[in-house]
């Protein structure tokens, strides 16, 4: 047998074909860190307690200002949020505070900037869901997001940029076709994934913010898939051509990168996007809806099944027995 880290699956398989006793299986789960031991719990609680505490307290603050207490003077409201921002920043720059807590405090300050804009909008009636609210929020936290090196804060920054662009296309750029907005979102999310991927190349595998890279990559793939499907059924020619070109370059590069880095994630998600696009191409020219639905369902089953066959083959070829969990 080849070298392979002990996983839950291995313990299940051994137990299935032996008379291994339950108590010993339980010990194996603990010994091989499949169940969290006291050390893992200590690390987890060190992250969970402050993270949850700050998130819940921030939600409380946001709910408080959403209540729009009429009796409270506007300067008190603004002063309270600004005071909370100042306190968070003080924690973030205090030298003796651990790095994780500094990052959590900076993330809290970034959320509170949004609350400050919302309270300002509430007092002076500037519009709470206008694109410029999100744009202002994005601009004022941009430096913190960039210097933090903290993936949850990057996610907040990316979500703000996405929301600003989307609302701009809805509320201001009335002449934009839906494809234009989705093409821009594709470029933004691809850039985010690429920048963080390059930045993380030198980091240890365990320290890479893989979840952030994959979230932005999925956002980019979904955006370009929607844009291309809209282009297939829509009438905006130039934007359609742009969507196809972006898709060809972006998805093609992503696929090549997936093969280069032996990443099943990139290959499977990009391939599924291509399957959806082909479904749209099948539906478009056929005028018989009954036949179309039947063909599409057969195509979906066939293409997904062959894709999974191929992925399993690649996975075995690349990783052998050392599968990622």
């Amino acid at each position, binding site marked *: *047998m*080849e070298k*392979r880290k002990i996983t839950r699956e*291995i313990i299940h*398989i*051994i*137990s*299935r*074909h*032996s*008379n*291994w006793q*339950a*108590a010993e*299986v339980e010990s*194996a789960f603990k010994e091989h*860190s*499949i169940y969290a031991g006291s*050390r893992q*719990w*200590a690390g987890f*609680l*060190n992250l969970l*307690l402050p993270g949850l*505490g*700050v*998130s*819940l*307290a921030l*939600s*409380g603050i946001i709910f*408080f200002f*959403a*209540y729009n*207490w009429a009796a409270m003077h506007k300067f008190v409201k603004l002063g309270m949020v600004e005071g909370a921002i100042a306190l968070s920043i003080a924690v973030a720059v205090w030298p003796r505070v651990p790095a994780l807590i500094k990052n959590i405090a900076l993330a809290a300050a970034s959320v509170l900037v949004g609350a400050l804009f919302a309270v300002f909008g509430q007092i002076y009636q500037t519009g709470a869901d206008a694109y410029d609210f999100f744009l202002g929020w994005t601009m004022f936290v941009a430096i913190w997001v960039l210097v933090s090196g903290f993936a949850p804060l990057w996610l907040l920054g990316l979500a703000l940029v996405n929301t600003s662009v989307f609302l701009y296309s809805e509320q201001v750029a009335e002449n934009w076709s839906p494809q234009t907005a989705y093409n821009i979102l594709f470029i933004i999310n691809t850039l985010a994934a690429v920048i963080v991927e390059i930045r993380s190349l030198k980091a240890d595998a365990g320290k890479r913010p893989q979840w952030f890279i994959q979230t932005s990559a999925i956002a980019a793939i979904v955006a370009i898939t929607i844009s291309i499907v809209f282009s297939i059924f829509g009438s905006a020619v130039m934007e359609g051509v742009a969507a196809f070109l972006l898709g060809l370059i972006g998805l093609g590069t992503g696929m090549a990168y997936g093969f280069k880095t032996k990443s*099943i994630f990139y290959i499977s*998600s990009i391939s599924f996007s291509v399957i*959806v696009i082909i*479904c749209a191409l099948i539906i478009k020219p056929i005028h018989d*809806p*009954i036949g179309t*639905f039947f063909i*599409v*369902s057969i195509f*979906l*089953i066939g*293409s*997904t*099944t*062959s*894709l*999974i066959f191929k*992925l*399993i083959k690649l*996975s075995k070829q690349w*990783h*052998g027995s050392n*599968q*990622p*969990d």
Partner: protein
Amino acid sequence: MEATNPTDQLIEDIQKAGGNNFSLDADRVKVELEESYGVYSNLPIKVLSILGGFLATLSFIGFLALARVLESETGMILLGVIFIGSAVASGRLVRHIALDTSMITLYMAGCIMLAIGMSKYTEHYNHNLSPMLFILISLLTIAFSDGFMMILLAVLVFSGSIFSFIPINSAYGLMPVPIIFMGIGLLLLNFYESQIITFSPKMNRLYKGLQTGFFLSFAAGLLTAAQNIHYDLRLGHLYTVSIFNSIALLGFVFKFTGDFKIENKVYLLLTYFFCLLFIASTFFAPFVSGGLLLLLMAYHFGQKTEMGISIILFAYFISQFYYDLRCTLLVKSGILFFSGMVFIAAWLFFYRQLKQHDEI
């Protein structure tokens, strides 16, 4: 010679501990380990087969609707039974993940067709017949299958049928019953994993599908509570779910204090005090404490995917609390802020102890 492979080493250790009483079918273990490489340990492949199966089912049902096949109840029931039977049979005959997409499509399309056919048949009789039939089908599926995906689908059909009794009978006050049932099921499956997988090879094969199915069903129950609580006040007895969550959370704390060997009575009392404060502050929002319970269980039992889902669910539950009409935003803001402070206070208090354990 010493074993260099971790799996061989593990088997050697088990043999040493078990002595002559230990018996192992090494060839079967080797074959299954080879087969398992890169299959269900790979999340993108799982997601791909589910997404492909789901879209194919939607498209196929669209075809049936347009071809007017859905209008014949006898045809629907017959086709539904054939589809479900074929899915179960093919799952037994060919055990390969690549065929999951077709099995999911067959099973889901079969269940939808059978449900439509049955709804037309039972229109003038007892409406509870359909969910009862589906419970039977799901139990039969579990009895005759042992693949992860079929078991998962069967558990979801089972829990969906149990939940459907509530709207069918307009018994909204009983909503906590299926939620607590799923929660207890998940707790038992997590805490008794070793006993279940060593009970018999069949139970061992069923375990993963059952655990994931109960996790998703309990999460779906909490989601239903979170979505409906702000406008459907008929679900008024949901505090019973809070009682269940509270007992489970306290049970967890009891386990920690045992694992951490906290013997200092002041620390013990304060741990329970912080826990009770959080439980009290979220008592009327059972989905918040339920979300935390899911997160803690997923972490403790090393279920990484479930942990990711639990984090997203927890954030969603907090956002749903915003729409709870039973108290003002001011009260809700106080509850959330207070709960946050409880966590921060607990962290500040236990920081040194946690740091010491973390560094061991």
